[in-house]
C-alpha cells in the first residue's frame, strides 16, 4: 500500500462521475436497442384486451346503448357501460381539480371522443369489431366550443349534474357552465395604478389548445389476483403512488393490496399525470373477469380525449412610466377547461401557478383573476412540459412586455433590462405572493445579447426591411426575445398538495456490503434520465461511483412514497431527498470510520470518497471499506447495515430562468418561416449533467417550436376535433428542427441541498415566447401588436394580408 501512490482528490473525484459530469445516459443502452419495457410490452397469461366505444358527437343525450350484437361476437367477453359501473359507484370518478368526471357516459356525452362503453375481448382485433357493433343512439344537443359563449344567458347547460350547484370546489359559481373564479393580488391597488399611469398597454393574448402527444400513448394492464386479493396495475403513470392512493380511495381496495408499477414510459409531458377512464375500466374489467386486462390508446384516442394543454385567453393590462419603468400588471384569464375540470394542479391552485405571471420583472402591484368555464371539449388542462400553467403565464408576460415596448417606442431588450428583478433583491417576493429564491437576470440577459450580437442582428433586420420596402425581397426578419422565470419543484407541503397528498418526495438508499448501492425514489423517469443523474447526485454525496449505484423508481411496493414526476419537480424535490439521504449515509459512515480508525467522529474529515483523519492524510477509510465494516463488525452503539431514507419537504419552490433569442425569416406571401438562429441560455442552478441538460433543452425547444408554429388541437363549431392525427397535429421531425445554441449561467438555489433548480421544462416555457415574439417582431414595422398562435403558414399569411402587405 505504502509505495502505491494514492490517487489525488481530483482523480478520485473524476472516477465518481458525480455532479457536473456529462455522464452518458445509462438508460440508452436498452432504449436504443429496442429493449425497453413499456406497458404495451407486458403480456400476462390469459390477458384480455379492452377498448372504448367513443362518442362521435360533442354534445348529446344518450337515448339507448345496445350491446347485444357486440356481445354476440365471438371473442368479445363483456361490454361495460355506466349502468354496470354505477352499482360500484365508479361510473363517475373524482378529478384532480375537485370536480368529477364520467368514467363512462352517464346519460349524456359532453365531448367528441368521450368514453361511452368499454368492450373487453380476446385481443385488439376482436375488441375493435365489438366496438363497431355497439349501437348508441344519440340525441344531439347544441354545442359550445367558445369559452366566451359558455357563460351567455341562453347557453346550453353542459354539466346538468351540477347545474344547480352554486358552490364549486374553488368557491362560488355564477353560471351553470362556470367552474370557478380564482383571484390573486391587489385588485384595487392595481386598478388605481392603471388609472393613473402614464402609459398602459392593453391586449388579449391567447395561448391556444394543444396537446403533449408523447410518443407512447397512455395505457395500462390491470391484474386482480382473486386468490390473494391483490390488484397490480402496470401503467403509464407519472405519479404511481398517487394513483395507488386514489385507486384505493375510489375502489375501497385496501392500499396495501394495490401495487402500481410504472415501467419504462415513452414520454409524459403531463399527459400521464391524470387518472383516465381507461385505467378505471381496465381495473373493473379485471375484477369482473378475473383475468388481466390491457388497455392501450391509439394515437387518435390520445389526441382527441386524453389531456389537452393550455387554452387560456389572457386579457392583460400593463402600465409604466414614460421612461419604461413598469408600475402595474392586471390580467383576466378565461380558462377553457373542457367538459370536466380535470386540470392537474395542486389542490389550492385551480389555475396552477398562473400567478407567476409577473415573470422576471419587479412589478410593484398586480392583480390576476381566472375564470374557469366548461365547454364541449375534452377535459385535461395538464402541464405540458411545464410547471402548472407556467408556460401560459410566461407567454402572457413576455407578450405584454413586447406590447408595452411598442407603446413606449422602446427596444424590448432594454425594457426588460430596465425592469428585471435585481440580483440583490433576492429572495424577492412578487406582487402576487411568490418568493423567488435566486437569480441573476441581468447577467444572463447581457450574456445572451452579447452572444448573439444583438446590435448586429437589429442592423441586419433593418437592412432586410429596406430590401422588402424597396420591393427587392418578400421576406422579413423577426427577432424574438424572451426572458422567463419558472416556478417549479412543487412543492412545500404547507401549500402544495394533490388530493390531500403533500407534495414532498423521497429517496431510500441501501449500501451493499461490497460498497455498491441501490437507491429508490418516489419519482418516475419518462425519458429524463433519472437513473443517470440521481446516481450522480449520490456519487458526489457518498463517494461511490455513479456506475455502482442502481436507481429504481416506479414500483409502489418497493419505492418510498412520492408524488411523481412532472412540473420539473424531480430534481428540486426527489433530488434534494437523494442528497439528504446520502448525507444520512455519510453521517453513519463517519461514526463507523471513527470506530475503525479509533478516533473521535470530529477528528475526521470527508475527502471525496473517504473519511480521513485530520492532519494524518494516510489514515483513512474509504466508503467501500466502511460499507463492508457496517455488515461485518459489531460496532458499539451503531446498528449494522448502511441504509437511509429521506422524505424531503421543500422549504420553497425553485425558480429556474433563462434568456432565449430566436431569429426568424418570414416569407409574407406564403407564410413560410425559416428559423435562422435559436440561442438558449438557461440558469438551472447547479448543473448535474451538462449533456442531459443540453438534451432536455433541445427537446423542449423542439416542442416549443411545434406549439408556436403549428401544433394545436382545433375544433370546429360542432365540436369535431380537426387535428386528430399526426397529419394535422404538428410534431416536428429532424427536418423541421433547427440548430440550437445552448448556453448557461449558474445561480444555485440557496435552499436546495445541492443548489439545483430543474431544467426539463424551461425550454418549453421560454421557447414558445421566443418563437412567437420573433413572428410578431417581423411585422412590428407594419403595426402588428398581437396575433394568436399557432403561427402556421396561413395564419402568418393572414397577418401579412391584414397589414396590407399583399398589394
Amino acid at each position, binding site marked *: 500500500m505504502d509505495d502505491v501512490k494514492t490517487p489525488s482528490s481530483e482523480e478520485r473525484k473524476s472516477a465518481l462521475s458525480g455532479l457536473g459530469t456529462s455522464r452518458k445516459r445509462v438508460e440508452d443502452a436498452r432504449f436504443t436497442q429496442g429493449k425497453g419495457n413499456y406497458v404495451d410490452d407486458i403480456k400476462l397469461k390469459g390477458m384480455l384486451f379492452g377498448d372504448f366505444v367513443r362518442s362521435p358527437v360533442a354534445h348529446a343525450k344518450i337515448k339507448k346503448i345496445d350491446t347485444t350484437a357486440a356481445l354476440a361476437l365471438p371473442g368479445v367477453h363483456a361490454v361495460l357501460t355506466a349502468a354496470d359501473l354505477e352499482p360500484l359507484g365508479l361510473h363517475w370518478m373524482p378529478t384532480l381539480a375537485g370536480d368529477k368526471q364520467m368514467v363512462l357516459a352517464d346519460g349524456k356525452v359532453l365531448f367528441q371522443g368521450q368514453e361511452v362503453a368499454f368492450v373487453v375481448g380476446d385481443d*385488439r*382485433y376482436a*375488441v*375493435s*369489431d365489438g366496438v*363497431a357493433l355497439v349501437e348508441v343512439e344519440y340525441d344531439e344537443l347544441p354545442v359550445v366550443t367558445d369559452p366566451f359563449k359558455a357563460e351567455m344567458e341562453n347557453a346550453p347547460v353542459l354539466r346538468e349534474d351540477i347545474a344547480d350547484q352554486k358552490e364549486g370546489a374553488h368557491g362560488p359559481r355564477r353560471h351553470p357552465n362556470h367552474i370557478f373564479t380564482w383571484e390573486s393580488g391587489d385588485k384595487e391597488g392595481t386598478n388605481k395604478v392603471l388609472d393613473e399611469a402614464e402609459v398602459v398597454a392593453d391586449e388579449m393574448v391567447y395561448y391556444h389548445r394543444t396537446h403533449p402527444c408523447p410518443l407512447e400513448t397512455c395505457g395500462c394492464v390491470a391484474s386482480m389476483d382473486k386468490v390473494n386479493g391483490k390488484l397490480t396495475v402496470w401503467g403509464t403513470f407519472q405519479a404511481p403512488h398517487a394513483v395507488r392512493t386514489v385507486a384505493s380511495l375510489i375502489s375501497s381496495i385496501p392500499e396495501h393490496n394495490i401495487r402500481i408499477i410504472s415501467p419504462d414510459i415513452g414520454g409524459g409531458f403531463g399527459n400521464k399525470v391524470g387518472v383516465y377512464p381507461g385505467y378505471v375500466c381496465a381495473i373493473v374489467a379485471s375484477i369482473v373477469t378475473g383475468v388481466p386486462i390491457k388497455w392501450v390508446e*391509439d*394515437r*387518435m384516442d390520445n389526441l382527441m380525449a386524453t389531456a389537452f394543454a393550455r387554452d387560456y385567453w389572457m386579457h392583460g393590462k400593463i402600465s409604466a412610466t414614460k421612461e419604461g419603468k413598469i408600475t402595474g400588471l392586471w390580467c383576466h384569464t378565461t380558462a377553457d377547461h373542457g367538459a370536466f375540470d380535470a386540470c392537474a394542479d395542486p389542490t389550492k391552485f385551480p389555475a396552477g401557478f398562473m400567478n407567476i405571471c409577473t415573470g422576471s420583472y419587479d412589478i410593484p402591484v398586480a392583480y390576476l383573476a381566472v375564470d374557469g368555464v366548461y365547454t364541449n371539449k375534452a377535459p385535461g388542462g395538464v402541464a405540458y412540459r411545464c410547471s402548472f400553467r407556467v408556460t401560459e403565464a410566461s407567454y402572457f408576460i413576455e407578450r405584454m412586455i413586447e406590447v408595452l415596448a411598442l407603446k413606449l417606442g422602446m427596444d424590448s431588450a432594454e425594457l426588460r433590462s430596465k425592469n428585471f428583478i435585481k440580483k440583490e433583491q433576492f429572495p424577492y417576493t412578487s406582487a402576487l405572493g411568490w418568493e423567488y429564491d435566486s437569480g441573476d437576470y441581468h447577467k444572463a440577459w447581457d450574456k445572451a445579447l452579447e452572444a448573439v450580437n444583438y446590435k448586429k442582428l437589429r442592423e441586419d433586420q433593418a437592412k432586410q426591411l429596406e430590401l422588402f420596402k424597396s420591393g427587392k425581397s418578400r421576406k422579413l426578419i423577426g427577432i424574438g426575445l424572451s426572458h422567463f422565470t419558472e416556478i417549479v419543484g412543487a412543492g412545500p407541503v404547507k401549500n402544495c398538495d394533490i388530493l390531500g397528498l403533500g407534495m414532498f418526495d423521497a429517496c431510500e438508499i441501501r449500501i451493499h456490503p461490497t460498497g455498491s448501492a441501490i437507491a429508490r425514489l418516489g419519482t418516475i423517469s419518462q425519458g429524463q434520465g433519472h437513473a443517470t443523474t440521481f446516481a450522480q447526485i449520490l456519487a458526489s454525496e457518498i463517494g461511490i461511483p455513479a456506475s455502482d449505484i442502481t436507481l429504481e423508481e416506479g414500483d409502489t411496493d418497493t419505492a418510498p412514497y412520492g408524488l411523481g414526476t412532472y412540473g420539473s419537480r424531480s430534481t428540486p424535490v426527489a433530488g434534494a431527498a437523494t442528497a439528504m439521504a446520502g448525507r444520512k449515509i455519510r453521517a453513519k459512515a463517519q461514526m463507523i470510520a471513527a470506530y475503525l480508525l479509533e478516533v473521535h467522529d470530529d477528528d475526521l474529515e470527508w475527502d471525496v470518497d473517504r473519511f480521513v483523519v485530520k492532519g494524518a492524510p494516510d489514515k483513512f477509510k474509504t466508503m467501500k471499506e466502511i460499507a463492508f465494516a457496517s455488515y461485518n463488525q459489531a460496532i458499539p452503539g451503531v446498528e449494522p447495515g448502511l441504509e437511509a431514507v429521506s422524505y424531503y419537504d421543500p422549504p420553497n419552490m425553485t425558480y429556474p430562468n433563462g434568456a432565449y433569442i430566436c431569429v426568424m425569416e418570414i416569407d409574407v*406571401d*406564403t*407564410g*413560410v418561416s425559416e428559423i435562422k438562429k435559436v440561442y438558449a441560455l438557461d440558469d438551472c442552478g447547479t448543473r448535474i449533467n451538462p449533456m442531459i441538460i443540453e438534451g432536455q433543452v433541445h427537446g423542449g425547444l423542439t416542442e416549443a417550436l411545434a406549439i408556436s408554429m*403549428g401544433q394545436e388541437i*382545433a375544433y370546429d363549431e360542432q365540436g369535431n376535433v*380537426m*387535428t386528430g392525427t*399526426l*397529419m*394535422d397535429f*404538428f410534431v*416536428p*421531425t429532424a*427536418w*423541421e428542427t433547427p440548430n440550437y445554441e445552448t448556453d448557461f449561467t449558474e445561480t444555485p438555489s440557496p435552499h436546495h441541498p445541492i443548489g439545483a433548480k430543474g431544467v426539463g421544462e424551461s425550454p418549453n416555457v421560454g421557447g414558445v415566447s421566443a418563437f412567437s415574439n420573433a413572428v410578431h417582431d417581423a411585422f412590428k414595422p407594419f403595426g402588428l401588436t398581437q396575433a394568436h398562435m399557432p403561427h*402556421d*403558414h*396561413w395564419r402568418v*399569411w*393572414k397577418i401579412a*394580408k391584414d397589414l396590407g402587405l*399583399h398589394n
Partner: protein
Amino acid sequence: MIPSAFKFYKPNSIEKAVSIMKDFGDEARVIAGGHSLIPVMKQRLTDIKHLIDLSAIKELKGINISGKSISIGAMTTQVELITNENLFKSAPVIREASLQIADPQVRNLGTIGGNVANGDPANDMPGLMQLLDATYKLSGTNGVREVKAREFYEAAYFTAREDDEILISISFDAPIGGYAYEKQKRKIGDYATAAAGVILNVDKGVCSSASIALTNLSDTPVYCYEAVGLLTGKKIDDNLLSQVTKSCVEQSDPVADQRGPVEFKKYVAGVVINKALKRAFERS
C-alpha cells in the same frame, strides 16, 4: 385503429388478380404500397372484405425507356422513380416531384400505380401525369384498354377505372424543355397546400410548347388548358408569366382544411405556380 377482417390474396398474375376482382366486385380491392389504403382501412372509413396484394406480379414492376417512350409499371415504388438514373435523364421532373412526396419510409413502399389510381386530389402524381400527358393502361375482365391521365379523374376518389380493372402501367413521352415541380406543405410527410408542375419549351425566348398542372387545388388534378394556350407562341416575360399564373389560379377550386381557407390556398397557388413557371423558364 384496427381494420375490420378481410381475406388476403397474393396472386402472381394479372389474370388471377382480375378474376378475384371479378368474383367480389366492389368488396375487393387491390393493395400496392398500402400507404393510402391502410390508413383508411384502419380508421374503418372503408370496408374491404377481399384484399389483393399485387406485389407478386412481376409484370407490374419496372421502368422501360426506349428512345422517347417511357413506360413505368404500376408497382414501381417512388424510391425507384427517384433513384433510376435513366429516368432522371429522360424525365427529371419525376425525381423532383417524387422527392417532395411524404418521407423516405413512405416512398420506400408507395408506388406510382397506387398514387395515381387512388384518386385522392392530394396525391402529387396525378398532377404530374397531367403535366406529362401520360396514358394509363388498365386491364380488366373486358381486356386491356388505355385512358389518358387528363381524362381519368372524375371527382375525389372517382376515376375512370372500373371496379374489376387493375392499372398495369403508365406511359408518356420524355418531356422536352425546362421543368419544375413546386410544392408548399406544412412539414415533411404532408400533402400539398398547393403544388404545381410546369414544362416549358422555349425557342429564342418564345414558348413553343408548354404544360402546366396543379395538385390539391381542386377535387381532381387540374390541367391548365387556358394558361397553356396563353403561353404558347408568346415571348416569355414576367408580365406574361403573371397572366399565366392568374389564369391557372382561376382554374383552381381548392377546399378549406387545416392548411388554411380557400383564399389563402388560392394566393399560395399563385406563388407556387409563378415560382414553377420561373424555374422551368430558367431551365429551358
